[in-house]
């Protein structure tokens, strides 16, 4: 990947992070998990997935199973020109459909999510259909790491492996946090590569904020020809905002407009924002 391309992806990701921050007020959003996967989502749509547009019949299919990240997804859609930027302004307006989880009323969203452990099973069916049709279409699912507590992910991996779904890639946003604490402090997930291997999937680990490294691991897909591949993207919850990063209490936030302005400054390298709003730990 050229330096120019990396700069261009960084600029897009920065714009997406601005959208995320702007959605963290007037009702708020799940800012930490959105910021952790912003680079990943931008990389996937800009570099990896073959998609001419949301209606492209031959497109690769991405499923965002960790639905809390929807600001990162919609922010990326705005940057791709698929979604009018004004629509982000209707966040949490019941007259539109822009809320805390993705849904198909927004062009580009392949399926709704919100209940964890669902879209890997759904993607198994989608990958089965692609196999039945003899298509080369790739199917990608982004899961959270905390989401891996849900047994249906592992059930679906068994089935994906049994059916030889090498067209299926699971991307784990490994930001090391679940809602209220670090994953390893609650239900430890490591060693993740071994767990995936035991379920018939081959996993590789990568810095989920390093575009060149992401290009390398995604270029190497699929990792096996008899089952799914997994990319464990190590990320930082709240990436880009030191005042939020890796803070258990910055999972769901609802900031004032002034705080949003300060956070936008922080994104651009100004000093840390002075955040006084109560943050809601549990939503």
């Amino acid at each position, binding site marked *: 990947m050229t330096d120019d391309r990396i700069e261009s992806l960084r600029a897009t990701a920065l714009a997406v992070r601005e959208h995320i921050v702007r959605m963290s007020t007037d009702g708020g959003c799940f800012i930490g998990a959105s910021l952790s996967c912003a680079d990943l989502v931008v990389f996937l749509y800009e570099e990896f997935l073959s998609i001419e547009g949301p209606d492209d019949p031959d497109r690769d299919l991405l499923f965002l199973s960790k639905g809390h990240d929807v600001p990162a997804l919609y922010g990326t859609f705005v940057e791709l020109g698929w979604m009018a930027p004004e629509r982000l302004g209707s966040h949490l307006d019941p007259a539109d459909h822009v809320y805390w989880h993705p849904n198909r009323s927004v062009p580009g969203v392949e399926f709704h999510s919100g209940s964890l452990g669902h879209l890997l099973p759904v993607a198994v*069916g989608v990958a089965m259909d692609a196999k039945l049709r003899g298509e080369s279409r790739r199917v990608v699912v982004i899961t959270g790491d905390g989401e891996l507590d849900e047994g249906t992910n592992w059930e679906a991996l068994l089935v994906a492996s049994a059916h030889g779904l090498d067209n299926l890639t699971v991307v784990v946003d490994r930001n090391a946090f679940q809602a209220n604490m670090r994953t390893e402090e609650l239900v430890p997930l490591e060693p993740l590569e071994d767990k995936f291997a035991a379920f018939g999937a081959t996993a590789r680990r990568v810095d989920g904020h390093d575009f060149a490294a992401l290009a390398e691991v995604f270029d190497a897909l699929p990792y096996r020809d008899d089952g799914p591949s997994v990319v464990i993207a190590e990320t930082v919850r709240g990436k880009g905002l030191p005042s939020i990063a890796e803070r258990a209490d910055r999972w769901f936030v609802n900031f004032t407009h002034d705080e949003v302005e300060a956070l936008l400054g922080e994104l651009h390298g100004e000093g840390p924002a002075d955040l006084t709003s109560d943050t809601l730990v549990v939503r």
Partner: protein
Amino acid sequence: MQPYEQLLADLMAEDERIVVMTAENRAALRTLPEVVGDRFIDVGIAEQTMIGAAAGLALRGRIPIVHALSTFLVYRAFEFVRTDVGIGRLPVKLVGAVPGFLSDGNGPTHQAVEDIALMWGIPDMGIFAPADEDELLEGLPAVIAAPEPYYIRFIGFPGRVAHTEPFALGTSETLSEGDDVAIVSYGFCVGLAVEAARLLSEAGIGCRVVNLRTIAPLDREALLDACELPLVVTIEDHFLHNGLASILAGILMEEQVVANVLPIGLPTWFRPGTLDRVLEHAGFTPAQLADRIRQRLES
């Protein structure tokens, strides 16, 4: 091939969108796998993944017909049915085996006697409860062709009921006419209702027997017509709460109609055993049903 899988094979030959799935329940699908090849998908004992995958297949234009025992299909995978199939309004057809009394000796873990309650609670979910295999086979093409998801209470017994009207979704079938009592039922219990009605008619009590065929869409008109008779009896192998009796109560409330209703159903899980002894213990033999109805008329 048995008639059910022969019908599936025929429909699959006509329509390549149809795929048949199972969570390793092959009781009704013994020969089909080798006939339809890749379009038969067995996911193993993984009902939740099966429903999720069915939603994914439907999202890509397929019509998945999925199989499992009713309890595991409807209860274990309920949130996948509700969240993926229901919210997605996807045309997944859920075929539940051994519903209601048909789980006979399995015990309460396998008793789908809350299935109507759960499926009725999902907007746009159709419910097809055929009275016998003939009706299952006659109704299945329309159920599969419908754009909505459907739950199907599978029944493999042929010739339990002498059907009187061609099948149509949302349209009940009147199996006998009478002015004293209307018996409304669905699925396996329709056969019992017909027999009970015959016993009552021999005693000079005229019975109208209504076979609902689909509970959703529901033939409200037939239910309201039945309520004009001196007594309406609902018979179902389902909990008394949140099944047909509760659905009827809701309709009466909405329509501000007063009716004399005898709800016959299950107060809790039934005692398992062979089917004939289950019916006897639960008070569901035709003679027991007829007695209850006669006693109510006399009271």
